[in-house]
């Protein structure tokens, strides 16, 4: 079980070299296979998350949620996608056509790029990058301009307000997000995600860096634009923000990208603070990738729990909270971590 995916990969590679394919092309083929499987993974998971969100939401709201399509409503997401595919894509008057049509497509690029560096299990990472964490943060910041451009091109004031909010929100929450991760990076002294996971063999960083975890979680919720920081969509104020004018599959793409982003933030929480694919309490008989998913889904559930419990914060409160609470707190966390490490070394453990 543990090595099932690695086994598949190596047998595939063996199959191709058996056919006489040179190593270079074999590498490229394997990369494509990995990327395609990541794409499939994202889509399947996003579809599942749509279903899960509805079930969790229904559970929180004391109702049933989707139960009719397929067993326990499992096929609901497929029905939704089918419905959305059949919808006409409405092009409002005065839009910037190219940008308008391009954004739902491009919105999937940053998540896709990020998944390349996430270790789904022991030795299960598409690209083991030296500066994985930094790369991840850099790419994640790209999606903001896509939201903004989608909002701008819609030629709708609600969309534009949503787009501007997404920019303002990103500016205030990217900083605490990065600063929170700095604490972990200081402890491990590396930007390599695999090494960070390995460093948590003894103790998970959620125990040594609880404040950083909290800051990362809050800023992560803000990054994914979910309640209580769902100002970008804010459906009771600005309808659906940048997605207001999108219909059919264009809207569905934004919708799925949101879930892809939720998965990324959850996966990052898992990797950076919850020991990644490491098995706790020596429960090694469960394969590492299963551990990773378990932890990731616990985080996703918490995300959903928060979403269906809290009201939405106001835009100036959001900025104030980011700049006046989270940034100083994360700076203090870095300071305390530095001092702590110094003392730790001075004692000489």
């Amino acid at each position: 079980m543990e090595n099932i995916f690695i086994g598949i990969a190596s047998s595939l590679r063996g199959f191709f070299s058996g056919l006489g394919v040179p190593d270079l092309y074999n590498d490229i083929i394997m990369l494509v296979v990995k990327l395609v499987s990541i794409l499939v993974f994202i889509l399947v998971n996003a579809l599942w998350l749509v279903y899960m969100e509805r079930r969790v939401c229904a559970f929180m709201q004391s109702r049933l949620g989707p139960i009719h399509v397929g067993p326990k409503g499992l096929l609901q997401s497929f029905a939704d996608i089918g419905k959305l595919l059949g919808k006409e894509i409405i092009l409002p008057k005065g839009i910037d056509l190219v940008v308008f049509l391009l954004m739902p497509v491009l919105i999937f690029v940053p998540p896709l790029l990020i998944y390349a560096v996430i270790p789904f299990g022991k030795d299960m990472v598409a690209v083991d990058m030296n500066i994985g964490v930094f790369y991840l943060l850099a790419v994640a910041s790209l999606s903001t301009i896509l939201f903004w451009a989608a909002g701008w091109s819609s030629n709708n004031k609600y969309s534009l307000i949503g787009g501007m909010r997404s920019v303002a929100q990103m500016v205030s929450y990217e900083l605490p997000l990065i600063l929170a991760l700095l604490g972990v990076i200081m402890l491990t002294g590396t930007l390599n995600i695999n090494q960070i996971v390995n460093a948590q063999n003894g103790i998970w960083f959620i125990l040594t860096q609880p404040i950083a975890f909290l800051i990362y979680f809050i800023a992560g919720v803000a990054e994914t634009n979910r309640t209580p920081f769902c100002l970008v969509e804010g459906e009771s104020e600005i309808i659906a923000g940048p997605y207001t004018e999108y219909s059919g599959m264009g809207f569905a793409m934004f919708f799925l990208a949101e879930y892809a982003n939720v998965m990324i933030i959850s996966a990052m929480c898992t990797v950076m603070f919850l020991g990644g694919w490491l098995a706790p309490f020596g429960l090694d008989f469960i394969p590492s990738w299963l551990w990773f998913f378990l932890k990731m889904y616990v985080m996703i559930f918490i995300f959903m729990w928060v979403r269906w419990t809290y009201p939405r914060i106001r835009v100036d409160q959001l900025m104030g909270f980011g700049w006046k609470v989270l940034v100083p707190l994360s700076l203090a966390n870095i300071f305390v971590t530095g001092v702590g490490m110094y003392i730790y070394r001075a004692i000489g453990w």
Partner: protein
Amino acid sequence: MIMGFLNSISYVAAAFHTLAAVVVISALLVVFVRNIVHSVLWLAVCFVSLAGVFLTLNADFIAAVQVMVYAGAVCIMVVFGIMLIRRRDMGETNLFNGQTVAAAGVTALVIMLSGFLSFKVGSVTSPAPVPADTVGNIATLLLSKYVIPFEVAALLLLVALVGAVFLAKEVKADADSDS
């Protein structure tokens, strides 16, 4: 035959040339498109492909910095700039003004100067291989050899930050929005 052709080219070189072409074309489009929003979006394309160029040079850290600082943050700043432009229709916001000739002169001068300098220096290839741990080296250099410039830069940014806060405060007194 195709296999032979594929084997003959260097993938890194191909990637470099493609990316370089994208950089140049997108940079030209930044200047020539008439809509300033499109111009900004092309600028983002330019920065991201520039990060790609850095990657072909094995400078992964610089590439990530390029994406984060330029493609991420600078574009956002430009967006804020656009929002200050008072125009209902963004169609004619990135036009040429009367100083085309002067600008062409300056540009030509810069190109000539940089061409002359690169010719004089010649293309130097470092015999040492690219170290795997670029980040560690950068950190060590920043905090030992270049610690004073590093601190001065930090101080400069701090001053800029305080100045920005001060300016924002002034604006607040004018009953401005907080976006």
